[in-house]
């Protein structure tokens, strides 16, 4: 915790620091144009709430949040399945392990935007019953889930491998089955250890929801672009960027809290 004097010093230093920055920016050549094109209060507000001719960046952003929320849950599940399959021992499971490895290699290797095109434009063209008639948003979610599950599976796998083999030996020695050992002993420890890298992937996912717009959905980035093109003003981009930042910050703080809670719980050793 900061003492009284330290708080004073840090406040003074913060104020001074930002004042200097603002002065430099304001005096820079072209700063008037930048202020008008990017920070005009009129356009900031108008693009945020929308008008008769342009979509609201804020409402469009709700689509990003929706895509993110659904994808995240599906990714956490699919990636866990892939990671678990990848470490089942025994010759019988060789083909399963092979599929899991091939999956991660494939979907980590191909750019997301290509997967989006393949799923979003390719699958509807096949004329399959059901699968060719989904919404653009659904195709977008499928592409995000396929790609991100490959990354997240690797994160899980690193976590599983970081739990020492002796933990498994202790669990098995007590008579727990392989699956029970994984479920009660290995995975809880593995997941705890990988929360920070998982969060990183989710911040990436939150941003990549913008790519779904290539299939035609009007999400925040696309809405901002529409506004910019029609008003010749880029405040809409600033608004969209701010919205993305606003949502990643709580995500980061939430993870900090989880880690802190875990630490506190172990240190406090509260009575049962």
């Amino acid at each position, binding site marked *: 915790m900061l003492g009284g004097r330290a708080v004073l010093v840090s406040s003074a230093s913060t104020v001074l620091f930002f004042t200097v920055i603002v002065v430099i920016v304001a005096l820079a050549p072209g700063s008037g144009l930048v202020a008008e094109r990017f920070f005009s209060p009129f356009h900031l507000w108008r693009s945020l709430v929308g008008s008769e001719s342009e979509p609201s960046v804020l409402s469009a952003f709700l689509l990003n949040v929706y895509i993110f929320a659904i994808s995240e849950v599906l990714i956490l599940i699919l990636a866990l399945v892939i990671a678990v399959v990848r470490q089942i021992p025994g010759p019988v499971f060789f083909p399963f392990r092979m599929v899991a490895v091939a999956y991660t290699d494939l979907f980590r290797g191909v750019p997301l935007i290509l997967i989006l095109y393949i799923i979003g434009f390719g699958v509807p063209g096949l004329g399959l019953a059901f699968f060719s008639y989904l919404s653009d948003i659904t195709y977008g979610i499928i592409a995000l889930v396929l790609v991100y599950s490959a990354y997240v599976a690797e994160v899980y796998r690193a976590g599983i491998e970081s739990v020492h083999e*002796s933990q498994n030996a202790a669990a098995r*020695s*007590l*008579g*727990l089955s392989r699956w*029970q050992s994984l479920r009660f002993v290995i995975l809880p*420890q593995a997941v705890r250890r990988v929360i920070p890298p998982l969060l990183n992937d989710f911040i990436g996912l939150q941003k990549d929801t913008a790519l779904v717009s290539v299939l035609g959905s009007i999400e925040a980035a696309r809405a901002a672009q529409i506004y910019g093109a029609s008003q010749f003003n880029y405040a809409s981009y600033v608004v969209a960027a701010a919205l993305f930042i606003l949502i990643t910050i709580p995500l980061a703080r939430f993870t900090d809290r989880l880690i802190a809670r875990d630490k506190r719980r172990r240190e406090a*050793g509260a*009575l049962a």
Partner: protein
Amino acid sequence: MNAAETPALALEGVRKSFGETEVLKGIDLTVAPHEVVCLIGASGSGKSTLLRCVNLIEPLDAGRVVVEGEEITAQGVDENRIRRRIGIVYQAFNLFPHMTVLRNITLAPREVLGMDRAESEERALSLLERFGLSDRRGEYPDRLSGGQQQRVAIVRALAMRPHLMLLDEVTSALDPELVAEVLNVIRELADEGMTMLIATHEMGFARDIADRVCFLEEGRILEEGPPERIFTSPENPRTRRFLSRIIAAGRL
């Protein structure tokens, strides 16, 4: 040993290699019910490997393991079912760090034996009480001393009501002043008639507690017999050499 009685444990021709090195070169060993057998031998002689082979945590290359008349190395036997009868305590405790003491102990009774929560906790608490740990039940393992952790590990194994306990150098990771509390627990178990197979470097303890001592060297049991004889007049020259080194090191 009563010949008519089914042994608690019988090993026949157990062999185990890691890559090129053969660590167990044909082990034959029988432990009678209520017997306490100590395995002694130099570091690397294969004591830990032998114990891990008994409950098949380490798969065997050859040989048979028979627990209370039932061969667990036989094809198609459910290993998990037989492991329940064998409690094993490791040198490094291996408690589950993400669970409280109580949960560490109740996990297997609940998930493996299907006991309900109240019953499993009651059993755990009475064991903790007995070993002076009941005030630690809500702690996480990293908040306990090494001696406490090792006693919790013993309680965790006992909560499954094993018929046979395997102890692998359970005091060698402990500070000297914590060794006694753990050895006392083991002594108490022996007094109650628990069947135990104990790998140990504590020769004084082995002499005290063992009904029989087996000297292991390079993957073979070179000599076995009652502790009075092994420790005073060993027959095998290599046992003699091992013990004289131990005595020179002041550990007997």
